């Protein structure tokens, strides 16, 4: 085997130009496949990142009525919905690929919230201590909520960057007081999402995806929530996924579990828990871009086929040219299979080398495209391995006919040909 490979390399080397031209079909085919796959992967990652917010991997489960988020701002406490217990929270944390679970209350339209003469029109979140790490927030100024804050129901609050900039226009908020529904809350800190993520707003749907958080969020300790709102209000859930790919599955599992445990079955009010289906939307968008790229892949596949036929052609020529060599080897005692293997290896080495060059060319091309068009590309290692192995397979498949022809040569006929 090893001898065959080194022999094959020698024969590729002894016909450099011919070998290169033979490989060209494979090189072009593999290069275009690598380029397309890299571009698809890059685009997909961009879609995922722009929808989810890079790296935060937070899945949110919301209480919905008839598929719309149940809004406590205008509706009474829903009947038959039990607040989520610590046990249930731990149940949720046991779901595969979930690293943390946080419970929180939400008011989507904060009314009667003021700082000085500024009215706040963002969100109010009543959060537990796990919320910030789960959702990917980090402290930017001041401090986070302490055990003491929760235990003694201190009226303290934390602003996110958007709330801070709309209410304070850049001045230091820590220590100042915000009035919420007639109660005074002291600002203790500012948080921000860890990954600096600038949403790219290009379409109307992008706008709706990203702009709904534009008013900012004021966070309160969950224990102070009843001071402003209601006791026993059902919470929303934020789960941290290990990777963006797990988010859809986690959302489905968690919402199923919550719908089963938290909603009493006797009520027929159309309540359910639903995972935010950002991943689903991302996948829909990806499918769209994949569909058009799959066609490109087919075309690239055809060029590989053409390349394979080129390899077959040149191998047939090689066999004819080397009848004497084959005849001699047979005379010296080489069995049929050995000749077969020699030519198969040669075809495999030829196309494998072509595949390797194709991968290099493909990566180069992908990088070039991403620089020129400013689109992201992402090199896929499995795609590269598959490409090289696949091109070797092409060589072996298309080399089979010439190799069989070589192995069947009659040594007398082969030696007679001068």
């Amino acid at each position, binding site marked *: 085997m090893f*001898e065959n490979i080194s*022999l094959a390399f*020698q*024969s590729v080397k*002894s016909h450099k130009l011919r070998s290169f031209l033979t490989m060209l079909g494979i090189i072009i085919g593999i290069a275009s496949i690598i380029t397309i796959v890299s571009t698809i992967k890059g685009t997909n990652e961009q879609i995922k990142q722009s929808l989810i917010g890079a790296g935060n991997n937070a899945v949110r489960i919301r209480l919905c009525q008839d598929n719309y988020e149940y809004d406590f701002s205008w509706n009474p406490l829903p009947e038959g919905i039990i607040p989520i217990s610590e046990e249930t929270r731990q149940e949720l944390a046991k779901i595969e690929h979930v690293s943390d679970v946080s419970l929180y209350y939400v008011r989507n339209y904060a009314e009667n919230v003021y700082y000085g003469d500024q009215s706040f029109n963002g969100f109010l979140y009543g959060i537990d201590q796990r919320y910030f790490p789960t959702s990917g927030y980090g402290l930017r100024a001041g401090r986070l909520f302490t055990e003491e804050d929760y235990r003694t129901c201190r009226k303290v609050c934390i602003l996110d960057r958007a709330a801070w900039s709309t209410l304070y226009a850049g001045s230091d908020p820590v220590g100042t007081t915000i009035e919420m529904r007639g109660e005074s809350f002291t600002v203790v800190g500012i948080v921000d999402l860890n990954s600096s993520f600038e949403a790219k707003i290009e379409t109307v749907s992008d706008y709706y995806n990203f702009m709904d958080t534009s008013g900012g969020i004021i966070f309160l300790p969950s224990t102070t929530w009843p001071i402003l709102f209601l006791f026993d209000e059902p919470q929303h859930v934020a789960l941290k996924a290990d990777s963006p790919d797990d988010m859809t599955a986690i959302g489905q599992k968690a919402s199923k579990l919550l719908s089963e445990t938290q909603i009493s079955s006797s009520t027929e009010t159309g309540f359910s828990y639903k995972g935010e289906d950002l991943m689903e939307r991302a996948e829909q968008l990806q499918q769209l871009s994949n569909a058009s790229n799959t066609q490109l892949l087919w075309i690239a596949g055809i060029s590989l086929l053409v390349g394979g036929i080129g390899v077959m052609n040149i191998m047939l020529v090689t066999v004819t040219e080397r009848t*004497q*060599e084959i*005849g*001699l*080897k*047979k*005379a*010296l*005692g*080489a*069995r*049929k*299979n*050995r000749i077969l293997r020699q030519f198969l290896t040669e075809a495999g080495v030829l196309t494998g080398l072509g595949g390797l060059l194709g991968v290099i060319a493909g990566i180069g091309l992908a990088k070039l495209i991403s620089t020129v068009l400013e689109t992201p590309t992402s090199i896929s290692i499995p795609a590269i391995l598959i490409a090289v192995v696949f091109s070797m397979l092409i060589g072996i498949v298309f080399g089979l006919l010439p190799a069989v022809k070589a192995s069947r040569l009659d*040594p*007398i006929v082969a*030696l007679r040909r*001068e």
Partner: protein
Amino acid sequence: MLIEMKDICRDFPQGNDVIHILKNISLSVEKGDYLAIMGPSGSGKTTLMNIIGCLDTPTSGHYLLDGEEVRGSGDNHLADIRNAKIGFVFQSFYLLPGLTVLDNVCLPLLYANVPKAERRERAAAALERIGLADRMDFYPNQISGGQSQRVAIARAMINDPLLLLADEPTGALDSASGKQVLSLFDGLNENGTTIVLITDNQSVASRARGTKYILDGEFVEKGVLEA
């Protein structure tokens, strides 16, 4: 008895006809013998050599090589017989141009599945014996015709074959190189190697201990050929 041929016929179909290239050839060669087979072109001597060398099988008749019936063997078995028992020397050397002299000599050992280190060692020793040790890393196009044929002989002998089969070994050489090759044959024969040599050159044939004459597929007396 190394070679025992009895009533060997070889027919080739040509169109609707059948050409009888060999007609009832019978031949015995003792171990250690040195036999020349002479005949003009078209006499069937190359076909006979192919059959003796197990490159071809007879249409009918019996051929026992080293006591083993050859007719009816499969391709792979014939390849193994050639590899183990027969060494070939051709008129035009047939050294592979892409391989070094050493690697060319190694080839039969490769097909006998001898490990690489041992192959190289044995091939180097064989080249040493024919005085070409300093050429082992050369490529065939870098050495002379006489040297090429000596390399081919080293290759033929590397597996210690029972039979050395030479087809016009001096046909492509100048007379000095030809003499060198023939004296190499003499030496091999003295050491016990059986040699069958096919030629149309009387002076080459005269080096052998016996000569058979072939014409139109049959052995004939010497006088018939000259007539």
